[in-house]
């Protein structure tokens, strides 16, 4: 230090702290490159200490220093460190376990009303289409698109319809797997869409649920008119409980998002939306997991088990399992 005159107070301030700031900069840079794993336990501890020191340094520097480069740099450093320090999270496995066993059932119970609304739209659509189609088979095409029907329309013979309920899909395992993954990706996309569409005040979600119900009702009416109701539901319910349940949950999540915009309560609208939106997304993610299970049941189990009583037994088992899961888990504390 060759300066004969005493340096500025702010210069002295910087000289005393610069080493610690640069050390923090180094740690943060390493975390940004390779995640928190890049640091040792001792370094992690000093990260937190250095962050707090830098932050208090920042507020002092703002008050006393007119070196704009220093203040800007320090502010950037604190911001990067802040994201690193408060961005830390649980280990993935633990977080996943807590999510599945605690958070998801609780969140679904909290969304009980929107979920019921979603179920009502789907059920309403199904009932409406069922009775309308029973009254006039000509309406079938209005409810069930040809792509969906795949020949299962009022012109088909009863034998053909029955055969569809008991086919084993060719019996090839890999064909079943392909079918299951197609169903899963298709349904998951619809479900996520229903949730995201909730942002349109819930109206598009309502329509999507209702339209799904219409298709279901049209199908049911066709099979009912041929006296195949028992067989149809034995074919539909083993995976359908899970699948329709998941779609209804997605719709419920969408309604919750729409509701947050319409009725923010005492919170600011954007805050409410953000809080509800995060929960809704969590529920939608859970629904995607349910759809994966449903696809497994549908693609593999349904095509290999032909007995009607066994099919109903499995369907009842899924009802009980989901009721227990959503009713009981995550209640402690």
């Amino acid at each position: 230090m060759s300066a004969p005159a005493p340096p500025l107070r702010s210069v002295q301030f910087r000289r005393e702290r610069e080493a610690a700031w640069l050390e923090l900069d180094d740690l943060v840079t390493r975390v940004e490159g390779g995640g928190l794993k890049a640091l040792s336990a001792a370094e992690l501890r000093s990260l937190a200490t250095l962050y707090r020191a830098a932050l208090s340094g920042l507020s002092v520097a703002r008050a006393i220093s007119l070196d704009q480069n220093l203040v800007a740099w320090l502010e950037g450093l604190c911001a990067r460190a802040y994201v690193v320090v408060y961005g830390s999270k649980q280990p993935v496995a633990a977080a996943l376990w807590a999510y599945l066993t605690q958070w998801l059932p609780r969140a679904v119970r909290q969304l009980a009303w929107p979920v019921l609304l979603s179920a009502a739209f789907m059920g309403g659509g199904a009932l409406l289409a069922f009775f309308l189609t029973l009254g006039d088979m000509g309406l079938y095409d209005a409810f069930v698109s040809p792509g969906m029907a795949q020949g299962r329309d009022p012109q088909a013979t009863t034998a053909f319809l029955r055969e569809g309920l008991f086919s084993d899909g060719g019996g090839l395992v890999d064909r079943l797997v392909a079918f299951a993954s197609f169903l899963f990706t298709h349904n998951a996309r619809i479900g996520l869409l229903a949730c995201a569409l909730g942002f349109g005040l819930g109206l598009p979600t309502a329509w999507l649920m209702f339209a799904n119900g219409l298709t279901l009702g049209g199908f049911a009416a066709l099979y009912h008119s041929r006296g195949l109701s028992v067989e149809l539901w034995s074919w539909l319910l083993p995976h359908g409980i899970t699948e329709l349940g998941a779609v209804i949950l997605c719709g419920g999540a969408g309604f919750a998002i729409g509701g947050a915009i319409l009725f923010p309560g005492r919170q600011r609208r954007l805050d409410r939306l953000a809080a509800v939106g995060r929960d809704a997304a969590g529920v939608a993610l859970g629904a995607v997991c349910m759809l994966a299970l449903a696809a497994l049941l549908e693609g593999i189990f349904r095509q290999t088990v032909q007995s009607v009583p066994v099919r109903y037994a499995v369907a009842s088992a899924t009802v009980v399992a989901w009721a227990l899961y959503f009713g009981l888990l995550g209640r402690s504390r």
Partner: protein
Amino acid sequence: MSDGRPRTWHTPEGVPITLTLAPLGERVAAFMIDGLIIVAATLLLVWVLVQARSESGLFRALFMLLSFGLRTFYFAAFELFRQGQTPGKRLQGIRVVAGAGGPLTPRAVFARNLTRELETFLPLVLLAAPELLYGPVGEGQGLLSVLWILVFFLLPFFNREGLRVGDLIAGTRVVRVPKAELLPDVSDGPARADRFAFTAEQLRHYGERELKVLEDVLRGGEHVDDNTRRAVAERIHLRVGYPGPLPGDVRGFLTAFYTAQRAHLERGRLLGQITTDKAQARERAR
């Protein structure tokens, strides 16, 4: 919209931190990069599938699941495991942070990416092949869906912070990663500045804004040459009434003046007197 607006976060420690929101252009560019990566990865999958020449359904199932996973979880996975940055965001120097401060939770990350399909993929389908979207349904429903999709697509252009629907639902913000460099203190250099002394009277003319401009001049980006420096020095020399002609060592003179002026203003700050600019300085001198 080339420049991002600042937004302040409140840390739990009580010290506010200001970050710059990422401008829309940078976010779109980041998205294009990520989109290209997704398309390239999908094409690679198709290529592998073709090379395998397998009729097996297992391959098709694998392809469907992988491309679904890629499209649905690409953004969420990167933002979750790479500190809020997808490869595209990393290249653009931007990242996702929680809007309310605190950690970026997995749920928030998933929520903000839930709507991507609606915001980008569906409008593309709409442009390319609308019949895919409406199917055989009536015109009325088609018009409605166009309306909804437009709402999603255009939202970022109609709010101050440029938020997409996903950001609203998740309460997240995309910000620029600060990348300032710590430069040496201008006043803390070699001590040749001591050759010039300034009286308190001479330091009454400028405020903090002028000091910052002077700092920029002294730090000298590419656009500051000797002529600029000399012109600035002449201005100051005249204004403060420094005795004698302008010294030949222009840089030394400016550094000395900067140091003295900064010491003067910082002392004022300690006493609660903040002089923001020369107008205020003039008022105070009266």
